[in-house]
């Protein structure tokens, strides 16, 4: 390994992915510099304010933090439960990553493979450079969590340790991405025996689930991998833990992170560059393999667009099986928890219901990032084809709207199944009732995504991922969509159980009709939007 070269790689990758895209969009450099300075000043002000804010009198009930705390405790959520839930959720995400089929080290631009890896570098050097780049990348993102400091300060009654919150979040993102790379490496190295790897992961889940059942609490087996991280975040906002506790868990997390990194470097030279691929190419390859034998040109052009963008993706066995599995994976534990455990564990049923609020961001962000990435890589990467060949853009708009609405509804169906089991059976109707909202969300997302896609050059040979500004825009819409869904989920939980069946049926019908009308109208507007973006670019 050559440290110097790793740093060179990191330097130019950061330029390419982080700095230059900004420089490019701000033609006037001093405007950019001024903007950055203002941002730094604001962030610094927040930190200073948090440190020197007068601590609140103990037991003062006037602040908002006290009421947040109270309502959380009413739900049976004390800090230990939160730590356990957060850390085991993170573990589960990673285990899911092991089980998932994708075998690759993903990169944003193909040049990283075609150009960079054709240089005389060992893979260890490359991986280290990549890690440094990722770290800087995540640092610029997590810097914004400084704005959470006041909330943490408030919750912890003015403890200055709250200032460490962004550090904890930064550690968590680094840890997640390093672990993700390590898992990819293991999957590549053991690709011949991938079924064993999956089986091991599954066994791990089953054993820790069994242990949780026996011990009547979330097993340390499942929370241990992320316990330091969860603690370092939660302790920033608690009253009784000192700054030393936060630092200790940060130290623990950092130590494990270093171990992960060492393992990653150790394995790097067993990875062939072949597996370093942009996610977009992989998506294409997969589609290509499956569809070679299909007739692309069926009847009219609008039908083939529909087939290409919508039907093949939704109505295929793999997709349906995946959905069924996810439904089962949420429904079954929910049922078991509710049926047998609520009483024994002494947690309230409300806690269980409350958990669906964690599920929403998890599932929705998974669905959304998949949609956005696949649109950029596949559906809209070929924007120019539509420009040239499509008579009008309406069939494309319609198919895309349908596809987005479908994926979002599926994500929501999983949540409604969970809610139906833990809260009230009528919750199962939720995806239908909020369908008009879903169509609206689909429209919002597509408007942003097509805008981003149209800003790109018409013919690009190298498919790439999202750049920083695009990423920011995309995550902004994601946040909006997710919050809207969370709010509607809470509302539904209150409202639905009180509505009589007949009225419920009427509401569903109205929603359906409304959704259809909205779909029609918004499809028109979307194709208009697409057209005008197109003319602009």
């Amino acid at each position, binding site marked *: 390994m050559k440290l110097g070269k790793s740093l060179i790689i990191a330097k130019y990758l950061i330029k390419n992915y982080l700095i230059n895209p900004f420089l490019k969009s701000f033609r006037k450099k001093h405007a950019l510099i001024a903007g950055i300075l203002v941002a730094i000043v604001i962030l610094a002000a927040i930190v200073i304010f948090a440190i020197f804010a007068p601590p609140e009198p103990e037991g003062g009930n006037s602040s908002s933090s006290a009421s947040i705390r109270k309502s959380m405790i009413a739900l049976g959520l004390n800090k230990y439960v939160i730590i356990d839930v957060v850390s085991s959720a993170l573990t589960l995400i990673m285990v899911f990553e092991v089980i998932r089929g994708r075998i690759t080290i993903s990169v944003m631009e193909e040049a990283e493979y075609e150009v960079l890896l*054709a240089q005389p570098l060992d893979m260890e050097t490359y991986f280290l450079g990549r890690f440094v780049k990722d770290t800087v990348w995540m640092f610029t993102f997590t810097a914004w969590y400084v704005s959470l400091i006041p909330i943490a300060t408030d919750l912890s009654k003015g403890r200055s340790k709250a200032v460490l919150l962004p550090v904890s979040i930064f550690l968590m993102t680094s840890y997640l991405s390093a672990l993700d790379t390590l898992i990819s490496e293991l999957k590549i190295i053991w690709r011949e025996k991938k079924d064993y790897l999956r089986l091991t992961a599954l066994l791990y889940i089953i054993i820790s689930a069994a242990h949780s059942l026996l011990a009547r609490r979330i097993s340390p087996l499942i929370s241990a991998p992320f316990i330091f991280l969860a603690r370092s975040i939660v302790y920033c906002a608690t009253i009784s833990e000192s700054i030393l506790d936060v630092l200790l868990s940060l130290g623990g997390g950092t130590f494990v992170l270093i171990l992960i990194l060492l393992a990653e470097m150790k394995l790097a030279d067993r990875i062939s560059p072949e597996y370093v691929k942009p996610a977009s190419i992989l998506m294409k390859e997969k589609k290509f393999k499956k569809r070679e034998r299909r007739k692309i040109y069926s009847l009219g052009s609008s039908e083939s667009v529909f087939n290409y963008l919508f039907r093949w993706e939704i109505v295929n066995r793999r997709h349906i099986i995946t959905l069924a599995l996810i439904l089962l994976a949420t429904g079954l534990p929910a049922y078991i928890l509710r049926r047998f455990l609520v009483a024994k564990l002494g947690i309230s049923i409300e806690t269980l219901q409350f958990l669906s609020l964690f599920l929403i961001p998890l599932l929705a962000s998974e669905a959304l990032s998949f949609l956005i990435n696949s649109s950029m890589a596949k559906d809209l990467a070929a924007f120019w084809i539509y420009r040239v060949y499509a008579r009008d853009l309406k069939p494309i708009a319609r198919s895309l709207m349908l596809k987005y609405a479908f994926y979002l509804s599926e994500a929501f169906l999983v949540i409604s199944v969970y809610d139906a089991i833990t809260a009230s059976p009528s919750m199962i109707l939720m995806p239908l009732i909020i369908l008009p909202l879903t169509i609206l969300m689909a429209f919002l997302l597509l408007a942003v995504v097509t805008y981003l896609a149209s800003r790109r050059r018409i013919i690009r040979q190298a498919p790439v991922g999202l750049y920083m500004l695009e990423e920011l825009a995309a995550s902004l819409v994601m946040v909006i969509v997710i919050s809207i869904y969370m709010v509607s989920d809470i509302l539904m939980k209150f409202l639905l159980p009180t509505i009589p069946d007949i009225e419920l049926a009427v509401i569903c019908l109205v929603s359906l009709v409304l959704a259809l009308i909205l779909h029609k109208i918004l499809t028109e507007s979307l194709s208009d939007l697409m057209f005008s973006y197109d003319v602009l670019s």
Partner: protein
Amino acid sequence: MEEKCSIEVLSLHKRYGDTKALRGLTFSVEPGEIYGLLGPNGAGKTTTLKILVGLVRPDRGTARICGRSVTSQRVEALSFVGYIPENPICFQNLTIREFLEFIGSLRELSREDVEEAMSYYLEIFELKEKRNEYVSNLSRGMIQKVLASAAFMVRPKVLIMDEPMAGMDPEAQHVFKEEVRRMVSRGTAVLISSHLLDMVEKFCTRIGIINRGVLIAEGGLDDLRRRAGEEASLEDVFLKLVEES
């Protein structure tokens, strides 16, 4: 005295899922040779070249550059190589200048060497005014020229190029060929894949034709002609041999 370098490809096999891209391909390129690799679409040219630069791992067989295996001595082997990929793929948000500096520093060239090479190649490829332009704002041919500059800049003993002239204007093609010839005269071994038969006919010193992953003919232009009748052009030869195989 400088070490002379060759390219050796020994019974390479590679499959992608069900597709057998290479089925025992063997050939070699000596120092001072320009070897043209021809073949229909999907014959396995790109796969071969990617194996030679370590981007793809062969299932069986060996590929050596200057006697070093590209799989087990990857770093050493690649330190002799300049490579131009098939598609004009380059870091979208680096400027030409930054990109060339990037490659230069990875190859441990001194700052002066990089500056000198940069001004030389950007001059001959007429990219001088564009040196601070972002790659995403360049045309296909321009990117191809940038990639060529990067490959030439490192003073390779082995040049591996996948359809390098696709998209270049005639003048650039001329400059490009001159430059390659200059390097060949110093003993560089050149492997070039192409569909431009006229160019290959005049430019390459030896030609290999592959189809479905195996070599179906190899030799100088005259050798190949003999197999298809005296008056045949390379195009006739190519069509005949591919047909027969």
